[in-house]
């Protein structure tokens, strides 16, 4: 066919010139490693300037003393003293007060308030991530089905994620505000949840608040999980299910042997980032119950920041990041398995 000479499609093609062509040629001539770094450069550049640079600066801050008077933000250089103070409990007075004092000594390297904040945060993280993953999984499976009106169901399920935290806080705050919301009553007139053990002032009660905050967070953030897992499900080659079905797999077996392993990487990414997000929880606490009732790690960072204790704030931020790193390393090992080389 097509006997006419077409110069567009031959080796000669590569001898064309022009800046675009030569740029393309240059790019294609890079080795795999060079090419990789070349493509990464814009992302790395922005991360370098907008993320790494400030982090280095902030780390610098953490090596100074707080300074509340005078126009300088920081006091004199104190090296790692802030870190020591934080871990020995010597800085507790500057942080929102303790949650469960009994936990003070249960963490080997952190004492006092910091350990209670850590406790709150870990509890929040473990419970909320667990439920978000499970519910998100089920939601994704539901959305993966073909049924009439599913586009609306999908929007409905995803939409909580779109609610600003301030508003979410308001919604829940009002729902659990005695004399406003109907979910909490008073001694004379208990509401349904009070019979289940909810106190009459749940948002001043640390345990109740934590519970409600978790519920609120699950409500909002399950959508994040569902969305990602749904995307993972959608990317599975449907013909694999045909094979599995013909091989005799029940629905459960299809899920266990095909669906699950194939979306595991996606689920891990979703859980990884949810865990990181949960470890940094702040907004929903502040808007629902306040950092004094449920002090999380990020609460400490923000509170000290707002109190102009920039050095302490930086220190807490770095310690928090370190703790997150430790927790998250679990995933990294899993991820390495699932992805075949992380």
């Amino acid at each position: 066919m097509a006997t006419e000479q077409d110069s567009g499609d031959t080796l000669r093609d590569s001898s064309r010139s022009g800046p675009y062509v030569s740029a393309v040629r240059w790019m294609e001539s890079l080795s795999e490693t060079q090419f990789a770094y070349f493509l990464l450069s814009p992302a790395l550049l922005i991360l370098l300037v907008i993320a790494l640079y400030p982090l280095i600066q902030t780390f610098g801050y953490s090596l100074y003393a707080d300074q509340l008077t005078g126009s300088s933000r920081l006091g004199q250089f104190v090296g790692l003293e802030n870190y020591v103070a934080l871990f020995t409990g010597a800085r507790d007075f500057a942080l929102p007060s303790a949650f469960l004092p009994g936990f003070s000594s249960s963490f080997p390297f952190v004492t006092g308030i910091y350990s209670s904040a850590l406790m709150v945060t870990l509890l929040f993280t473990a419970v909320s991530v667990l439920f978000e993953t499970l519910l998100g999984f089920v939601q994704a499976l539901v959305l993966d089905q073909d049924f009439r009106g599913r586009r609306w169901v999908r929007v409905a399920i995803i939409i909580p994620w779109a609610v600003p935290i301030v508003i979410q806080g308001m919604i829940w705050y009002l729902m659990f505000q005695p004399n406003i919301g109907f979910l909490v009553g008073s001694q004379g007139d208990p509401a349904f949840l009070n019979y289940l053990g909810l106190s009459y002032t749940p948002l001043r009660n640390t345990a109740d608040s934590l519970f409600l905050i978790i519920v609120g967070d699950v409500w909002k953030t399950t959508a994040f999980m569902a969305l990602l897992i749904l995307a993972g499900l959608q990317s599975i080659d449907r013909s694999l299910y045909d094979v599995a079905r013909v091989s005799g797999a029940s629905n459960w077996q299809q899920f266990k042997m095909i669906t699950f392993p194939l979306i595991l990487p996606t689920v891990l990414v979703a859980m990884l980032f949810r865990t990181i997000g949960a470890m940094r929880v702040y907004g929903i606490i502040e808007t629902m119950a306040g950092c004094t009732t449920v002090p999380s790690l990020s609460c400490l960072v923000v509170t000290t920041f707002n109190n102009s204790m920039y050095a302490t704030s930086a220190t807490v931020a770095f310690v928090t990041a370190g703790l997150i790193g430790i927790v998250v390393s679990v995933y990294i090992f899993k991820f390495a398995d699932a992805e075949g080389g992380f």
Partner: protein
Amino acid sequence: ISSSDGGDGGDGGGGSDDTETGTPISTEEVTEDITIQLAGDSRMSDNIEGIREILYDNGLPENITLEIIAGSQVTNNRQNQYQQWLGSGREEPTLLMMDSGWTIPFIARNQIQNLSQALPEDMISTVKDEYFQASVGTATGDNGDLYGIPLFPDFPTMQYRKDLLRNAGYDDSDFETWATESMSWEEFSKITKEAMEANSDIQYGFTFQASAYEGLSCCDFNEFMTSYGGAYFGNPEENLFGPIGDRPITVDEEPVLESIRMVRTLINGEDDEHSLDGITGNIAPEAVLQWTEEPSRKPFTGGDAIMHRNWPYSITINGAEDVFGEDLGVMPIPYGVTEDEAQYPMTGGPVAALGGWHLAMNPNAPDRKKQAAVQVLRAFMQPEAALANFGLQGWIPPRPELLDSEEAQEVDVIGRYLPQLKVAGENAIPRPVTVVWPQQSSQISTAVNAAYAGEKSPEQAMSDLKSTLEQIEQSQ
């Protein structure tokens, strides 16, 4: 500007390179057209036309235009915003509306203009001599200089339902007495209880705010405590605004404990383990422990409560014709002990926590703008302007004498309650704002809330609090 280069390892030291905030500003009129930005709130920005009119009527040259940046009303957000703006030496805005509760930290950081040095003497002396003293105190630096012009003060009062109390046998003569002659907490609780019994369909007796938030430490608790003659740092006249680390911490003193017992009695009744004798119990719901202003106001406005402690804004709401109108009664906050019985000056009697806002000036603003800003400040300070703003925005005039004026009485709703406000203003107690107050405040509110809730005994809570406050004091 190099206010925060500690990260470079350089001059993080002791604050020797303070920005010059004290240069006198020329009071000459600016001739060219100029726009002044004022960081205010959304209420102001809604009323901007009216405000401009007031200012022009009060001598602001027409070539100066005031513009409002409507900052967030979540007050500690705004504080944070200002910290960043002033801390990094931004030129805008020229004027900033600052909460009397956190102006002092800005003074301590040299981040706002020293008005005593920058403004003409007549303006300064007017403020110092004629304004509510408590307000002025919260705009004054260590050195006695003035850094902010009080724009309006705020004093809480006790609101009540005349109609309900009538059912309990009280009448207008009682109400008239109460308006200026405060009653004791014993009496207050008894009356409330009576009213509750007389109006059995009313759910709550007394609603106030005791959530663990700034409002508790600055205001509600501060009022209760001070009304019993207690204080945070000993003699308020001497120690309210410092010296940090060099003042006694007196939160564990008996008057403070009594105020806590009083509240516990109000909530839990007389058989509470730590009840206060003489107080009639069970008139406040447990819910106050998680209430801030609005949630506590809702039941009152909704007709579910008899007594309600709140700021003047709620008088305007509750006294509106379609709510309670003339049936809304207002009185000063009850007292625990009289002034004479109290240990410290400024304590005892019908104290009212001080709120309100100041106008401060950005020292980094260009001179032209500062000049123009002075004109704006001057216009705001005019008595006529203050009264007009009272009518327009409900800003209580910052000079006590103005509360006696006819114009003030003509203001809708709140004009009916000026005597009560005046009493409150004269007995106002500021919160002890210093640079460490934010830290102390959250510790105080947590501790007090816990004590109110019965999680700790008053003694235990306050002695723990004392040691924490001590550490904070010493950390500076």
